[in-house]
């Protein structure tokens, strides 16, 4: 099972879409709300070198934004 983490903010549409994709494929994930969790925000910036959400970490592969194709590829789906 892949180790999946998503860094998100509460009203971020693309974060929601990513989480829906995970749910649809029964992928378990950890989520950090970088609006309120400063440590997670620093971690996110450290991993992605940028400030936008979502940032998705799949076994160390860092994907910025809801890039469906890259996410599915990293998860080994389709």
């Amino acid at each position, binding site marked *: 099972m892949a180790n999946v983490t998503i860094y998100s*903010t509460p*009203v*971020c*549409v693309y974060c929601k879409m990513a989480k829906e994709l995970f749910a649809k494929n029964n992928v378990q994930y950890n989520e950090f709300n*970088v*609006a309120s969790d400063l440590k997670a925000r620093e971690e996110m910036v450290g991993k992605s070198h*940028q*400030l*936008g*959400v979502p940032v998705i970490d799949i076994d160390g592969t860092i994907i910025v934004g809801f890039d469906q194709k890259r996410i599915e590829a990293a998860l080994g789906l389709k």
Partner: protein
Amino acid sequence: MYDVIIIGGGPGGVAAGIYAARKKMKALLITDSFGGQSLTSAGIENWIGTKSISGYDLAKMLEEHLRAQQGIEIVDNDLVSGVTKKDGGFDVATKGGKTFETKYILMASGSRRKKLGIPGEAEFDGKGVVYCSTCDAPIFGGKTVAVVGGGNSALESVIDLLPYASKIYLMVRSEIMRGDPVTQEKLKNHPQVEILFNTMPQEVIGKDFVTGLRYKDAKTGEQKELALDGVFVEIGLIPNSDFVKDFVALNEFGHVVVDHKTQQSSCPGIWAAGDVSDVLYDQNNISVGDSIKAALNIYDKIKKS
């Protein structure tokens, strides 16, 4: 060969798709996503029938309504990249490498965000230059930011930022803001907001991330600089009409010029509705109406032939 290919999955495209399906036209709708430009809005308050709805929820409703129809085919993960005229219709090519044949085309492809087009903007995209305020406003907690623009999108971005940023500059290009007076009032005397008029951004400055924005005072010509952690760009839209520009009449902004009675473009066989057309007002409710008009006009055309 399809009777009609509908390009776009916003409110306009979906409305056309639903009507096309119910008229039992052989229809295909191509989009990369549903919901259109309002997808990222935290709260839409003027979608008729609903006091407030998030762009995300509206997108879901639209998609479900479309998918509940019988007979319409949907490609939901691709973008139209080119259209060519041929005998009896058109070939529609997609970025994903597919080609479809159709008699008629209904363009409901909307618009995309305009960029500032200044040095540093691309370099700091994601590193302080922001295009989605609902997504990223929370990341600027306690920071100083600027929102560039004077229309409703810009005003709403300021509102998105109020719970988070400590200071927000609203940088308006001209003397006046075009956004709704209701929203303007909320911001005019707000302690966190400073409105600057006659500002022309020149360069985004920073190191690893944005540290400032250089701009020109349009009245005095003076170059000034603001120390900032973020720049939110909300300056308007460019119609997605590139793929027909060689044979469909466009106005000087790139909108498809249409007969507003029928939504027909200058090219027989192509209709356009919503923000991609030269409609006077870019509104979801209007896009829906105009797209339905186009779909019914196409249906009339099919019946006669």
